[in-house]
């Protein structure tokens, strides 16, 4: 019986399938007994939350597409049709709209977790790089989705973002015409954005699958940032982390519900309730909140090409992060100086977000320049140098014997041994 899997499941139907296609063994191995560091805190919920969020977005999106018209004459009206005429259309659309914001909240916290606990360092560099790819695809998807309602902000957002590419010398204007499928943002642009907005989430699913495979090969990082040394350092994923993730999912759903049912348009822009008008730009044009920091970086320099390069650079620099950080210590619990600089960096990003929401005049120009400078200095100056200069605190011997009391991620479950690990 060459090639057939020897299944250990007692249920005959599951056994029959598992022998021929060992999916049940895989689920059992990767999500049942998968040895997971025993000291996770709630920051480790956010990967699972992002995955739940993606499923919510795809499910609501597929249904919304059944009633949406990707035509510049009909798009705005079809959204109102969904909101007013279609059964529960308001619910599905508000979930989709606020789900996008939740997706970015969850993903940004997930990225912060990676930065703070050094999850991007060896051997998890590729895992991190795949994560940056996911972030970029996600941003493209969100941007194109925001264009679909074809309101004033949709239209002018699309115009401004696509015009970014015109900054590049020689080929710039040709690229923009290609993106538009014409000489301005118009029906062909809307058609292709709808097509791509439907496609990209499934590309995301594929890259996330690779992200998870890479994660399961290296194993998870943990709040101490030290490697798993023995089975005593781990717990089986189920029931310990399925339960812990479930708590996070409940909180996540509560926050999403509060947004959907009590403040569905809180994060939106009132200008998008006005149908797209190619003859008039709204007075206050701002992107959605999750793009504000990048928008501020773009506007921080008075030169078009430099601004565009800095904006794209602020994302692309994340690709080389594993090689910019010269320290071998992962968790910032043991890097007191760098921990401070990372918090300053987070504050700088938040201030950049505020700058992006205000008109570029007065104090906001200065602030956005200072914060942009710090954004890049953090990666290009502080990280490489501090890794050599900083003296980290002593690392614990192992996850199960932390040297610092009370920092091991709460009391450890008694009698919780990683028995399944011994089988492997």
């Amino acid at each position: 019986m060459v090639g057939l899997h020897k299944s250990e499941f007692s249920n005959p139907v599951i056994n029959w399938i598992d022998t021929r296609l060992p999916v049940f063994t895989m689920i059992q191995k990767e999500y049942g007994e998968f040895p997971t560091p025993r000291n996770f805190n709630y920051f480790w919920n956010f990967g699972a939350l992002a995955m739940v969020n993606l499923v919510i977005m795809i499910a609501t999106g597929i249904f919304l597409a059944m009633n949406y018209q990707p035509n510049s004459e009909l798009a705005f009206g079809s959204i109102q049709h969904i909101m007013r005429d279609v059964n529960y259309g308001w619910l599905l659309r508000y979930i989709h709209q606020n789900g996008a914001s939740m997706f970015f909240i969850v993903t940004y916290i997930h990225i912060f977790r990676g930065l703070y606990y050094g999850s991007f360092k060896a051997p998890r560099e590729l895992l991190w790089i795949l994560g940056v790819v996911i972030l970029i695809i996600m941003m493209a998807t969100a941007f194109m989705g925001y264009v679909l309602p074809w309101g004033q902000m949709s239209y002018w957002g699309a115009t401004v973002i696509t015009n970014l590419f015109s900054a590049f010398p020689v080929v710039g204007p040709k690229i923009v015409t290609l993106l538009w499928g014409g000489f301005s943002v118009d029906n062909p642009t809307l058609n292709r954005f709808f097509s791509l907005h439907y496609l990209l989430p499934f590309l995301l699913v594929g890259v996330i699958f690779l992200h998870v495979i890479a994660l399961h090969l290296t194993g998870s990082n943990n709040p101490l940032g030290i490697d798993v040394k023995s089975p005593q350092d781990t717990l089986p994923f189920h029931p310990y982390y399925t339960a812990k993730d479930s708590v996070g999912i409940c909180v996540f759903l509560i926050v999403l519900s509060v947004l959907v049912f009590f403040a569905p348009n809180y994060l939106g822009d009132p200008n998008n309730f006005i149908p797209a008008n190619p003859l008039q730009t709204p007075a206050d044009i701002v992107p959605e909140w999750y793009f504000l920091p990048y928008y501020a970086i773009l506007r921080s320099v008075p030169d078009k090409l430099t601004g565009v390069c800095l904006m794209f650079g602020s994302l692309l620099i994340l690709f080389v992060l594993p090689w910019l950080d010269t320290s071998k210590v992962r968790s910032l619990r043991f890097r007191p100086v760098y921990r401070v600089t990372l918090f300053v960096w987070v504050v700088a990003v938040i201030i950049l977000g505020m700058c992006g929401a205000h008109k570029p005049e007065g104090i906001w120009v200065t602030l956005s320049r200072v914060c942009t400078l710090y954004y890049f200095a953090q990666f290009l100056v502080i990280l490489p140098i501090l890794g050599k200069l900083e003296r980290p605190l002593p690392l614990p011997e192992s996850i199960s014997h932390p040297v610092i009391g009370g920092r091991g991620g709460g009391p450890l479950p008694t009698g919780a041994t990683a028995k399944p690990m011994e089988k492997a």
Partner: protein
Amino acid sequence: MADSSAAASTHPGPAGEVTKRDMLTLVTTAAVAIGVGAVAWPFIDFMNPSKDVLALASVEVDLAPVEVGQGITILWQGKPIFVRHRTPTEIKAAQDVPLDSLIQPQPDSERTKAGHDQWIILIGICTHLGCVPLGNKPSDPRGDWGGWFCPCHGSQYDTSGRVRHGPAPANLAVPPYAFASDTKIKIG
């Protein structure tokens, strides 16, 4: 199975006894099932006809311009509706048919409104597989019973729209309608 063995290895209960963990598993599973069901309903109902589709549920037709022997086809809820002004011969043929010779026995009086024998109103969709039968125009082929003839699979209907020759299993349906006046009907 997998779940219970992992749980049992960490929180063993005495053999055969119902543990707190069993209770928690049951309650959690039930809560998730109820939640998924509650969330599934908006998605399912989303696909039902929307308010604007339901608003198009009725249509009024003026019968005055339809001459004897003539038929018109109008659209109601996206479906063709046959309105035919029957000749006295056609009415007699429809009324005199012995019911036991029909595939789906139904007297003509059940398919028309009392006092308006000359008007037959039908949903123009063949009960076989949904084609629109020919015969509403006098120049169309009407089959051996002078009613309607379906070009798809050869079903034939008489002047009352009753099926007389297969493969269609049932008579052409009569839509809900009422006479608003002698020359005006409201369908739906």
